[in-house]
């Protein structure tokens, strides 16, 4: 049976497979961990979501019911995969992984200095509060 739904499923599955291949190329070819995080969180999420949407439509046409497990899987992947990418990038920065040598900007470079300044300001505020009371 070849209906319109088959074409929709084929479209979503093909797009998902394409983005999975893009993820692998990005993970192999990109220069440092911070740019590899982009490949692993954005395109991998889009690829797996397209494939799962194809699966959802397939079971909708095959069995006539909306499979709640696939919907939960789609939402879970949508929420967790970018969060995981962000967490691991942050952890790698604070564990001292170097940036690529051609990177032009490092927004966290004077983080220590900034936190020290904030700590001093907070200490002064606390001091004033104690004296006032």
């Amino acid at each position, binding site marked *: 049976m070849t209906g319109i739904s088959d074409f929709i499923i084929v479209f979503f599955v093909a797009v998902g497979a394409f983005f999975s291949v893009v993820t*692998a190329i990005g993970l*192999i070819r990109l220069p440092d961990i911070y740019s590899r995080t982009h490949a692993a969180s954005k395109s991998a999420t889009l690829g797996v979501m397209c494939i799962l949407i194809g699966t959802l439509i397939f079971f909708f046409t095959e069995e006539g019911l909306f499979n709640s497990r*696939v919907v939960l899987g789609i939402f879970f992947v949508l929420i967790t995969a970018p969060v995981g990418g962000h967490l691991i990038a942050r*952890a*790698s920065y604070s564990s001292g992984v170097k940036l690529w040598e051609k990177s032009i900007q490092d927004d966290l470079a004077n983080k220590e200095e900034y936190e020290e300044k904030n700590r001093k300001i907070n200490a002064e505020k606390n001091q004033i509060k104690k004296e006032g009371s």
Partner: protein
Amino acid sequence: MLDIVVSISLVAVVLSMIGIVYRVIKGPTTPDRVIALDSLGIGLISVIGLISILMRTSVFLEVILLLGILAFIGTVAFSKYLEKGEIIQRDRDK
């Protein structure tokens, strides 16, 4: 047509997973390996979706949820370990 395209996509996804395994083995630092393992888990999720289309059963779909949760928890635990050296925090001020 559906079966042919799904089979080709399955082959493509598995080949991309093999490419990711290269990064897991070679990756110069530990976060590289962790993020490659995370994408490996996501690739496994899509493989299971494609296999359940090919075999026309919906019994494998619990595996999707389970793998998603396990990949996320693994990534979070590894990143906490790399950042602080401990996974379960007791003092919040440190």
